[in-house]
């Protein structure tokens, strides 16, 4: 770890720095997100549009800045979500794997602490997530779900709007130093 200390402390290189989290947080937060998605929408219907597991994936991938971590993270959350769904295992897994990978890759090129960047990235990944899920369902499962770009954009914007404050809260869980 020592060879990176300079990178780590250098202010200009801050965007290359990986944030660290407690293992407990890394397990508990996605679980909470999945539980939220499974449980809450039955009381508040509109919340079913909220893709918390996805936002959590994006957040951790962005902040960890490691594509490998992003991949494993995305796959983990996706598969957990799959196993609570009624479709074949792997659908959310693949989509979220890709999201994790791309988010981590992005993090190396953008200032991920910036709220505007976060908003845009969250929006982008939400849209990508919905779209790619649809593509997968169509191509792999032959499910003829309809893709409504307009609705997807609106949903993605909503998610992005939630993402900014949510990421801000999650920032507090970072292990500094």
């Amino acid at each position, binding site marked *: 770890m020592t060879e990176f200390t300079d990178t780590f402390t250098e202010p200009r290189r801050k965007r290359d720095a990986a944030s660290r989290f407690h293992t407990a947080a890394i397990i508990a937060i996605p679980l909470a997100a999945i539980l939220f998605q499974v449980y809450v929408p039955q009381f508040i219907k509109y919340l079913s549009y909220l893709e918390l597991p996805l936002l959590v994936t994006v957040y951790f991938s962005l902040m960890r800045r490691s*594509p490998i971590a992003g991949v494993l993270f995305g796959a983990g959350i996706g598969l957990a979500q799959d196993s*609570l769904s009624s479709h074949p295992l792997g659908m959310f897994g693949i989509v979220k794997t*890709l999201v994790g990978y791309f988010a981590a890759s992005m993090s190396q090129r953008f200032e991920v602490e910036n709220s505007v960047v976060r908003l845009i990235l969250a929006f982008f990944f939400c849209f990508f997530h919905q779209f790619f899920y649809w593509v997968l369902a169509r191509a792999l499962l032959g499910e003829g779900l309809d893709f409504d770009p307009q609705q997807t954009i609106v949903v993605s914007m909503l998610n992005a709007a939630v993402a900014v404050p949510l990421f801000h809260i999650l920032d507090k869980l970072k292990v500094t130093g």
Partner: protein
Amino acid sequence: MEYLLNRYRTLSVLLLAILAQLVLLAYQVKSNGEVRLIRVWAVTAVTPLARAIESTRGAVSRFFSDYFVLLDVREENKRLKKELDRVNMDNQYLRSELDTADRAKSLAIFQSRSPSKTIAAHIIGNTTGSGAKTVIVDRGSASGVQKEMAVITPDGIVGKVVDVYPTASFVLLATDPSFAAGVISQKNRVHGTLKGQGGTKVIVDYVQNEENVEPGEWFYTSGDDGIFPKGLPAGEVTSVHPGKSKKEIILSPSGFQNGLEEVLIIIEGVHAPIPELPAPHQQIHVQPPPPPETSSAQPGGASGPPAATAPPAVPLSDADRILDRYRQLGIAEKHEWGVRGRGAPDFNLPLDAAKPAEAPKPKQNQ
């Protein structure tokens, strides 16, 4: 080389992760198989958490509702009364029991009254993802739940069990497009098939145009499908239109009207009779919920003999009609067929004129 491997380590991990999941998917799609074990683990792991949350929420909301009742009794009373009225109208079984508006209690009462053996279950989650309308309930094979069991509320049918895990089950809701159940109309005993549409309404399919179904009429389960025992309310007809070859009937499913929190899973179904037109428990003077655009077919006690004996509307051919016509002529003229009697009947007698009086006054012909 090492440099290259290092350089593409991330990529390899990504591709490996995707490949692994694709193989997993391919296995499921190709063998039509289930990776049950993973699901069982996941569901079993999540269930206690979800159950804990649900019971906490229940307790908290009860506490708060009590608290607010105390805080603003009048306001809450009003709201409760309103709620009560609604529930009262919707719920045919529990009208006298609703003083407390306690759903749990009414569920228990229904459970004890229902001839079928049921177990109560809490809904602890929706399945994630789009498409199927499925919920998770906190009862599984450990409680005797099996696949294809009926799930109901006192208000009506909810769905059927499609997947069973030790501590939880997945319930396919009646509104899902792949859901179907046998139903029968209350008034004319018209059989049909209830099908989900993906939205909030359901349809009743395979009802011939000749059959008589009215808006506002209720459909009950018919017991034909082997899932639901006969006699459970399914929903109320909101619209009926003659279609190309069969009627298009839209139903508002009654099982969902009061939100879904607790449901009953029918472990051992017992067929019950379809309630006669004046709904069961007549001591309470509430008709089945009035239809939005009142057909006003039978107000209150005016429902004399139940029309349940109406003959099935099997189409008649011309041959049947002509035979009937001649039979009527024979009756009108007191003709005994194939007997010498008073000679051959007049087959050109206008039937309407002949019917009322014995002395026929045939319409004057030129």
